[in-house]
């Protein structure tokens, strides 16, 4: 009797997972169709004659001697009026030559005002909180240290804040070390799908474009009024996105504002990165899921998209447990071919790519003008199980964080630039 109910519950679970997979697949098909066929919502590029706001640029750094010169030079070469610009590299407990490099630049350029953190908790959220207190201007732009922003990037991002409803802005992230190997090439495809199609379609449909802490901007007063960044949440960008939307603010997405990043070049580094993202994203999901569904500031479809965005890192775990459930049903002679095939098809359609299905990635590549890169699409299957392991590990970490109630230790992604 017990085994009957257990097997029945497992069958029900597989149906539930198949339905969730179907919903995600439909969502990605809608995004792809929106991006390919619908008139796109554009960013605020043409308001360049408007009065430019004073801007603070924050660059969180921890042992960044390999990349510090590049980003500081890029900021010096920015066409933003220097009397309206303040650059704060946040040296977070660095043990290499980062401090020395920052001092050299600060001596030469008055608008570069480094913040040296030698006490207090380590990590990007804590560093940003200290820097927000130190910053002078309302519009704050955050660049990761491995980014090299083009000359007009600050102008482009800052422009959006002429719209009083905009609380944060996100630019497009493009890997620059694509040709280093198979991993970087596949990450380039993932990034293209995620930004060129996914983010832009969400912006066009007025859903939930996500603020990303790697190349983004926000209003300082808004973040301070929310108590700053939560150091217990590793994905401070997802946390801010949902904190803003559930308080009535908008997030704008600038698809043309391309910023070049360094992708992980080794599988171990990539594994740790995905694991950290999954952990942080799940922490944010625990915090914002119910608030997203109940807030009066979001429309129905925004709530649906927000809930699906928050739940996206739960998918690989659902998938892994559904495979185990299938295994038990199979050995018990209870597996139904219909569920087996339908669930398998939905799962595969969703999972060839890390949350950016192959048809979405293919469309993004075409829009970007890429051709031969489309041949790499089948190789995305190569990282499918790898991603499942990394995300499941991150989810486990997030659950342990809830039990332990501690502050997770920040892990920096390794740099490769010479």
């Amino acid at each position, binding site marked *: 009797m017990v085994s009957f109910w257990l097997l029945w519950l497992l069958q029900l679970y597989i149906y539930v997972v198949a339905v969730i997979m179907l919903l995600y697949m439909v969502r990605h098909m809608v995004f792809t169709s929106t991006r390919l066929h619908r008139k796109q919502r554009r960013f605020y590029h043409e308001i360049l004659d408007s009065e430019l706001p004073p801007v603070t640029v924050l660059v969180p750094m921890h042992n960044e001697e390999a990349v510090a010169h590049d980003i500081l030079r890029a900021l010096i070469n920015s066409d933003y009026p220097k009397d309206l610009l303040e650059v704060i590299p946040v040296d977070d407990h660095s043990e290499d030559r980062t401090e020395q490099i920052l001092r050299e630049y600060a001596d030469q350029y008055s608008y570069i005002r480094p913040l040296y953190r030698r006490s207090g908790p380590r990590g990007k959220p804590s560093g940003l909180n200290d820097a927000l207190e130190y910053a002078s201007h309302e519009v704050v732009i955050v660049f990761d240290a491995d980014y090299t922003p083009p000359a007009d990037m600050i102008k482009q991002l800052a422009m959006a804040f002429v719209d009083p409803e905009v609380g944060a802005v996100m630019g497009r992230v493009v890997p*620059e070390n694509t040709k280093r190997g198979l991993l970087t090439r596949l990450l380039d495809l993932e990034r293209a799908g995620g930004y060129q199609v996914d983010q832009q379609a969400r912006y066009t449909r007025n859903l939930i474009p996500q603020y990303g802490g790697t190349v983004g901007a926000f209003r300082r007063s808004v973040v301070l009024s929310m108590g700053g960044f939560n150091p217990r949440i590793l994905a401070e960008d997802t946390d801010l996105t949902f904190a803003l939307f559930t308080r009535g603010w908008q997030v704008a997405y600038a698809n043309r504002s391309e910023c070049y990043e360094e992708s992980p070049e080794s599988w171990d580094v990539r594994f740790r990165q995905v694991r950290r993202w999954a952990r942080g994203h799940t922490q944010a999901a625990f915090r914002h899921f119910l608030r997203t569904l109940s807030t009066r500031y979001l429309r129905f479809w925004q709530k649906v998209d927000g809930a699906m965005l928050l739940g996206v890192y739960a998918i690989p775990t659902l998938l892994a447990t559904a495979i185990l459930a299938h295994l038990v049903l199979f*050995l018990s002679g209870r597996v139904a071919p219909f569920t087996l095939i339908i669930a398998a098809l939905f799962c595969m359609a969703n999972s060839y790519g890390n949350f950016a299905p192959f048809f979405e990635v293919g469309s993004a590549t075409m829009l970007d003008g890429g051709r031969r890169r489309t041949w790499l*699409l089948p190789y995305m299957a190569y990282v499918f199980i790898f991603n499942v392991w990394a995300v499941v590990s991150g989810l486990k970490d997030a659950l342990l964080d809830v039990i332990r109630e501690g502050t997770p230790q920040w892990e920096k992604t390794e740099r490769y630039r010479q």
Partner: protein
Amino acid sequence: MGGTHSREEFERERSQLGSGTTGSERFGAGLATTSPLAAAMPHRAYRRVEPENKIVMALTVLVIGVIHYYIFINFHPIMLAMSEWSKLVLSWLNIGAVGQSYGYDNYMWVRLYPLVYDIHEPDTLGYLIWTIGGIVLIVLFALLRVIAAPVRLTILTILLLLTFGSVYMLIVSLANGSLGFDGFEISKLYVRAVLLTWAFMPIGFAILSLLIPFNPIERIVLVFLPIIYDFPFSVVRYAVMVWITNWLGGVPAAPFFLLFGSAITFLFYVCLFSLMMNRVAKRVGGGPNREARWRW
């Protein structure tokens, strides 16, 4: 450098179009512009594909529907051929009389011919050996860091499924239970799964193909070529599954079924899709009048 598009190319476009403005990229959609740059080629960040001719699209869907209907009403001889050819492969594998007869099963208005054979079922000691062997291999592969992580984790996943299955069967056999299927039942499951794959996959592929600006021929090829490929593949896979379950039992059959079933068919589809996407990208992105093929 490299990336989605070279940084040099990006900077060149930017300088040609003015710093951050293209003239027609207005705040919000639909505002008129008088800028002389309004006729500028659509920037990749906001460009979209030309709308397709709806009549051609409808006709393509109709043709796909007719072909699929024709295949569906002819599934009976196709499924019979699959079983017959699998028998042939089994005889080539030279494993005696295994799977040399078949039974009958009616599913989704189609008569199927699942092969009948004996399945090997280990005793409790056999499942214990599977479990211990699985654990030893898991530890070994977890420590073998020289293997690239995606390959190592895929092997570990297969081993985990094997070990999980053998632990489950060990518990079942200790409780005087047995494997939930015999040779005929697992055969039935296989041929039903193949029928479902061939019946439903083209519908999904057809819907997917409508998203992308493929031409009618590409759409038809994309929908039906995977079935043509999958037929010989299913024949061989069926024979291998019968061979494995006859020789080793149900435990290795489960990961075989779950990981190498329709996943391989799907991978072939993605391969084909990537080749077709290359053609589409060439069509819309190359040639002398390429700006005319994109819209703002």
